[in-house]
């Protein structure tokens, strides 16, 4: 890490400390104040030119290094992502629009993302198309000079609060299912769209169903070429190759544990403290695997298979560290102080969220398939 990246880390920590409450567990709780905190924090970052610092200068960014972007990912995730859903707009919606959008689409969508004023959701997964995304059934059919969209999406995070959807739909049926898919940029305010929240242990707003009932869109809402949506999906995945810096939250919580337990720490079973030390080592391992990926990304050499070992290691770390932390907080006395209570809430949230880590954004099975393909390829 450069000195600039280290300075950025300190600046971000200071901002979090000053503007995010200690008991913040993300923007998407039942308490509207948490969303307000995230919105204010995004405006703060935007005002300081820190929200889209990875973007190139011609789109209002700073063209920051991949290592500075890594620091942002780490610090935000470690502190329960105080940017709320904005990370999606910043990390992949914006960059994809820069690469594939028309000048008009860029003028319409990039400035609100850069100001942290708009929430996007991703309309990919369907009831019958999860890991096998290309099997999706939502259809867009020609209708005069536009399209009519019908179908259903599921697991769509933030759909209840999103203003726009990055929607993948089938426009042509061909021999190969990856062909004939198209990306549409659709406004969630359209009455032809219905969102139904799905109650879940991750909290409200994380999981939703989205129904499209004769949604009318125009040619101007198509991103890239008709029937070429799969190549844009590959770009989206490439922008998110490193993904969430899960190891950062794991490490932060593990390192906080001794102070949260106070004197009780030294009375913990030796076996449990051994598992704590093991998890800290695994945090380091996952972080180094992420850094290898970032270095490859910086040199433009990163391939989907390169990310697979890291993804497997970091999602397992997420779950195993959550299990160790749950055992540690079980040792906190009932009459604990506020700091310990906040720590318990953080750990419980971490455990619930970690259960999804091997499922969301590409299941661990898909990562294993990718990695084994790469291992077994002819050498």
């Amino acid at each position: 890490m450069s000195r600039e990246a280290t300075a950025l880390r300190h600046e971000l920590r200071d901002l979090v400390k000053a503007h995010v409450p200690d008991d913040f567990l993300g923007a998407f709780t039942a308490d509207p104040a948490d969303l307000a905190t995230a919105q204010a924090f995004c405006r703060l970052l935007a005002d300081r030119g820190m929200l889209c610092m990875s973007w190139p200068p011609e789109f209002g960014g700073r063209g920051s290094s991949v290592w500075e972007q890594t620091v942002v990912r780490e610090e935000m995730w470690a502190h329960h992502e105080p940017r709320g859903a904005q990370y999606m707009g910043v990390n992949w919606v914006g960059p994809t629009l820069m690469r594939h959008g028309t000048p008009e689409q860029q003028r319409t969508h990039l400035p609100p993302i850069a100001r942290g004023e708009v929430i996007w959701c991703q309309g990919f997964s369907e009831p019958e198309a999860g890991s096998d995304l290309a099997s999706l059934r939502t259809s867009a059919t020609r209708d005069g000079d536009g399209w009519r969209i019908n179908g259903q999406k599921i697991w769509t995070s933030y759909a209840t609060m999103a203003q726009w959807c990055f929607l993948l739909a089938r426009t042509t049926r061909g021999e190969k299912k990856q062909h004939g898919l198209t990306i549409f940029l659709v406004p969630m305010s359209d009455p032809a769209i219905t969102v139904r929240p799905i109650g879940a242990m991750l909290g409200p707003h994380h999981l939703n169903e989205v129904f499209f009932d004769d949604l009318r869109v125009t040619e101007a809402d198509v991103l890239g070429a008709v029937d070429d949506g799969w190549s844009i999906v590959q770009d989206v995945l490439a922008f998110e190759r490193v993904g969430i810096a899960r190891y950062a939250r794991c490490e932060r919580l593990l390192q906080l544990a001794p102070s949260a337990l106070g004197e009780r720490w030294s009375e913990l079973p030796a076996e449990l403290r051994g598992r704590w030390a093991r998890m800290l080592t695994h945090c380091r391992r996952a972080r180094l695997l992420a850094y290898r990926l970032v270095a490859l990304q910086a040199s433009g050499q990163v391939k989907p298979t390169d990310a697979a070992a890291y993804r497997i290691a970091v999602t397992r770390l997420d779950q195993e560290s959550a299990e160790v932390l749950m055992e540690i907080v079980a040792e906190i006395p009932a009459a604990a102080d506020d700091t310990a209570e906040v720590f318990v809430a953080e750990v419980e949230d971490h455990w619930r969220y970690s259960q999804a880590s091997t499922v969301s954004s590409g299941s661990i099975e898909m990562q294993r398939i990718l990695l084994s393909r790469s291992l077994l390829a002819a050498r």
Partner: protein
Amino acid sequence: MIIDLSEEAAEFGRQALRAFEAAGGDGLVQRAEVDPSSREALVGPVLAELGAWDLEPRADTDSLEAAAALCRSAGYWALPYPVAERLSRPGDLDVDGLVVVASDRPLATLAGLDLRWAAATLDGRRHRVTGTSAGGPAFRSRLELSPLDTDGVADVALALVLPCWTLLGMLDRAMELTISHVRLRQQFGQPLSAFQSVQFQLTDAEVERTGLDMLAKYTLWSVGEGRDEALDDALALRMAALEAAEVVFRVTHQLHGAVGFCDETTLSWLSRYSQPLRRLPLGLSATRDLLTSRLDRHGLVGLYGAEREVAQ
């Protein structure tokens, strides 16, 4: 920190792989097992020709990285020679190498070698090795020690780290052999590699091997920089290396089937000769206990520890 070894070190490692192959490859350990006193004659000349003993891993970073690459290549061929231990020699003692020993069990794989050794315990007590018992399995022998001083704390980290690079080379080879095996071996009319259960076991092992590779480079950097926490880092690496070895050898043996236990396969030799590296000076639980006790409440240095990695 370092993400990769320098290109020079990596090239040195490749040269060493070729040189060990030319000197006998897998046959070296088999010949040395029959006659441990031949270890020096079998391997010494090729190491000398490579310039192994010109390396000064305690003195400069280039040497340190080259030493790590050399140990990895030695592990790949299960080279019947304590390369890592010789490269760990302390700068202030007139000896040929250093082994780390448990204070109550001075054991090392020195059988059949006529060299001048020092031994250090994990708390830094140094000894001169005055004798070795007759060799046991995998060249293991009991050491007779004569106390020297208590100045060895700084010597121990490197002497723990370089053998982890040897073990990493063994894991590289075990994976390579197993991937070849499952691509060739046919059952139920198709190669083993076509079964997803086989593929997924391979990925479990590969995640361990790749993760160890990254930790080994990080720890090499920490030791080379002489960082205060270098011994903690070395113990964390050793713990991860032992865990990785458990997974990789379990998977690679399983996927080889019965033939993997036979001496006609290289895996049988690799697996057997990984054992002393894994149990000496401390096994997995004892390594984890020592690391845990050293970490106390402050944890490992990292993003959120008491002391963060400073910008380099």
